[in-house]
């Protein structure tokens, strides 16, 4: 059991890191999107490993189902000539590597410096799955540590997003005229 969990975690971690690196280095944008799918599915697996089953379901349906479809549509809409490879810009690549390594070093030092503070195991409560009823009550309640107001705000945000998306992506008057000609 113990060994199995570790194996699952390290396989998922390897898949996630390898796919993430390939997603930012791939020449073809469609391959990058496919690698992003692997990263997102792997993260959903990690949520399952952490016993957050609802979060894993949301991750799969919203990210892997919704966001990735949007990405693929956008890639197909903006790449008419079969997805040409972008020429590499050496200076930007070097700048990116330097920035990422500097940040990585600082964060790694801080994380490892406080190594002793992190528990190795979650407590006994942490092994249990969260009751779906508790999630629903917290999402729909107005009391302390309950989330009805953010939930409703989120729906207003999504409405604003829909309207904004339509307004931005709609063709302007001149372009409609051109299309008719």
């Amino acid at each position, binding site marked *: 059991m113990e060994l199995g969990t570790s194996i699952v975690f390290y396989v998922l971690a390897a898949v996630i890191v390898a796919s993430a690196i390939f997603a930012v280095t791939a020449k073809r944008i469609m391959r990058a999107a496919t690698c992003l799918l692997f990263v997102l599915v792997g993260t959903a697996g990690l949520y399952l490993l952490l016993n957050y089953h609802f979060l894993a379901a949301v991750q799969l349906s919203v990210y892997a189902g919704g966001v990735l479809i949007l990405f693929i549509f956008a890639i197909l809409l903006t790449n008419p000539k079969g997805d040409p490879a972008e020429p590499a810009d050496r200076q930007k690549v070097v700048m990116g590597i330097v920035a990422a390594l500097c940040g990585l070093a600082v964060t790694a030092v801080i994380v490892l410096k406080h190594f002793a503070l992190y528990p190795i195991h979650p407590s006994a409560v942490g092994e249990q799955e969260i009751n779906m009823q508790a999630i629903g009550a917290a999402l729909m309640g107005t009391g302390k540590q309950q989330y009805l107001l953010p939930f409703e705000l989120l729906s207003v945000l999504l409405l604003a997003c829909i309207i904004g998306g339509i307004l931005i*992506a709609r063709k302007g008057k001149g372009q409609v005229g051109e299309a008719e000609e």
Partner: protein
Amino acid sequence: MIPMVSYLALSTLLFFVGIYGFIARKNMLAMLISIELILNAVELNFSVFNRYLYPEQMEGMFFSLFGIAVSAAETAVAIAIIINVYRNAQNIDIRHVDKLKG
């Protein structure tokens, strides 16, 4: 069980891979993919801290949940903007997007 620091190391790596992609890539959609990687790392961190340090509460999980929804909304608007840029400039290379009014 897996030590918490393994999760933290994984999300740190994911975050800075995303930072690298955001700086180095020139295609706007590739930059958006990098932003997704960064957001994903942050959401993983929220739930790991929740699970290992305060397992009797669920604040971290709800932060992740709302983060996922907000990032989906952000992606939708960003893709609408990118498609509009493509319509005006015929490509989505970030170097060519230097005019506010095309």
